């Protein structure tokens, strides 16, 4: 765990609780998808919780966040209500998007969450635009764009890095490097010295951290969000992590080496935070209770989601556009 930075026990305990909530949410979401209770693509964030959590802890309610297909963790860390999220995954009427979006489109504009996104890297272009709006309107907010390692090969992603630099926008780019782009090892389709070199080539200060160390993430995010808030322009954080599960809930992830997977899972961000807390005197029972509380909160969200009403049929035709009939 990181050395110089010495966060309070309370802060780390909070980060731990957030990670537990995210884990419990996605443990359920993945299983519910495999069991056929959810539909579509459900991308579990399991193993990567420290990143959303550490970054999210340094964002204000008014800050904007743009996410990608693996988006549940970012929403929860930004404060989204797990009940409304779960209802969305269940396609129910009062889900965050009224059931129209599902897992890949969870969003909560009241909390500045611009949405998960089904097209790799597109959310990053939205993020730089959000930052441009912030700047134009003279607002005191920053924008965080989360995206994966695979996204670093898409043109719009690279354009957006240039864009943020050219217009000096208040953006924190967070690359969650979980080694894979779907079933492909990202390294096998990525040229050059690496992700940091790419960000730097567009003039964006960039650094790498251990993305499974929530304290390291918190420290870096605190520093970088401060820099962005101070008007320094964009910064780039490369967080190394590992995706425990398959690319999505229905993918058993068999193309991966078993050893690699167990090595990855051994480096559990939650276990690490738990050990840190335990070493500083937090009781094992208390830590276990935190876990139980998170699981219980999700259990309750699920039962509310299960019993919630479906969207009324006429909802099919609402919120398309003001002009013109949809039929």
């Amino acid at each position, binding site marked *: 765990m990181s050395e110089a930075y010495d966060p309070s026990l309370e802060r780390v305990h909070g980060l731990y609780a957030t990670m537990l909530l995210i884990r419990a949410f996605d443990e359920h979401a993945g299983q519910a998808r495999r069991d056929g209770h959810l539909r579509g693509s459900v991308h579990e964030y399991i193993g990567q919780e420290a990143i959303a959590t550490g970054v999210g802890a340094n964002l204000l309610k008014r800050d904007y966040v743009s996410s990608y297909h693996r988006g549940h963790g970012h929403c929860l860390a930004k404060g989204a209500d797990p009940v409304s999220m779960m209802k969305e995954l269940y396609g129910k009427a009062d*889900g965050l998007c009224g*059931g129209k979006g599902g897992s890949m489109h969870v969003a*909560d504009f009241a909390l500045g969450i611009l949405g998960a996104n089904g*097209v790799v890297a597109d959310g990053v272009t939205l993020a730089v*635009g959000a930052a441009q709006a912030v700047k134009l309107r003279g607002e005191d907010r920053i924008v965080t764009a989360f995206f994966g390692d695979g996204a670093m090969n898409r043109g719009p992603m690279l*354009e957006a890095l240039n864009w943020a630099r050219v217009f000096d926008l208040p953006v924190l780019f967070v690359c969650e490097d979980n080694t894979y782009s779907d079933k492909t090892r990202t390294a096998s389709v990525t040229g050059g010295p690496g992700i940091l070199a790419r960000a730097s080539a567009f003039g964006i200060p960039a650094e790498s951290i251990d993305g499974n160390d929530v304290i390291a993430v918190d420290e870096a995010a605190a520093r970088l969000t401060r820099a962005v808030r101070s008007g320094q322009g964009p910064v780039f954080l490369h967080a190394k992590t590992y995706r425990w599960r398959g690319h999505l809930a229905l993918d058993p992830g068999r193309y991966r080496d078993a050893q690699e997977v167990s090595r990855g899972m051994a480096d559990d961000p939650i276990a690490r935070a738990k050990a840190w807390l335990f070493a500083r005197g937090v009781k094992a029972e208390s830590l276990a209770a935190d876990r139980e509380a998170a699981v219980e909160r999700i259990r309750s969200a699920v039962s509310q989601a299960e019993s919630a009403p479906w969207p009324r049929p006429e909802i099919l035709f609402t919120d398309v556009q003001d002009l013109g009939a949809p039929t």
Partner: protein
Amino acid sequence: MTVLSYAEAARLALLQEMERDPNVWVLGEDLGPEGGVAGQYAGLQQRFGKSRVVDTPISESTIMGAAIGAAMCGTRPVVELRYADFGLCAADEIVNQAAKARYMLGGQVRVPAVIRQPIGMRDGMAAQHSQSTEAWWIHIPGLVVVAPSTPADNHALLKAAVRCDDPVIYMEHKELWTVRGEVDESAAPAPLGNAAVVREGRDVTIVTWSSMVSVCLAAAQALAESGVSAEVIDLRTLWPWDKDAVFASVVRSGRLLVVHQAVRVGGFGAEIVSEVAEQLFDKLKTAPRRLGAPRVPVPYSEPLEMRCRITADDIVAAAIGMARAEA
């Protein structure tokens, strides 16, 4: 009233909207130095500064993506894509993000962006700079599509587009930039979705838009000399199109001819003809017809390009054929 070119009229509309609402801004390539390819932004950067008239990198994906993000966050961007052909470089962002966001996110957010994509053949610009792609955007739920044919409309419709809360594909025609006409500088925004009957007639209803309006009017004049009374309808807004106006005319005339510069196959004319055939079958005295470009890329060489165009003679011949045919 004053006489302005089609480009000047658009510039005036934008200037007025930017003065009215500080959240209106413009982005695209080469807007500042000389005000865009046709001077349609002349002087605006000098007036409103570089942060409201933004010269961008050549990054169509991010031009569009950023505009969407900014539109979600309280601003009203006007995007200049230069030619409809390059609009294809941002097709993903337009369709998957701009058009779908409001619906997919359950009505939490709107994307009030104007997306300018000039269409049409002009003076040998050849295959990659001459396309008319309106049919594509009409097919996409969430988009409004506008195609002004006169300076006055380019003023009043652009104002309306800027104030529209949904994304508007705004298709000017390259060959109209220099066309001059009377403009009421203080005109209110024109309601979107209203066609104009630009010439009244009994025998055949000619539905058209953009640069083909004047060609159809010339044809109608010639038809009058041949004893055929043609009504010419300028749709102005292509989605939603003014079915009331078209249907009312077809009910009277019993004959429908749709004329556009876009490729005939799969063009927007197909939608209009189908809708009329479905709804007004019993009112039709003869087969409806479409005139559009052959299904070939636009060639460079003058005699070939000329053969791609629909002429007044083509329209006259088609209309006379229809007028003579018996049901």
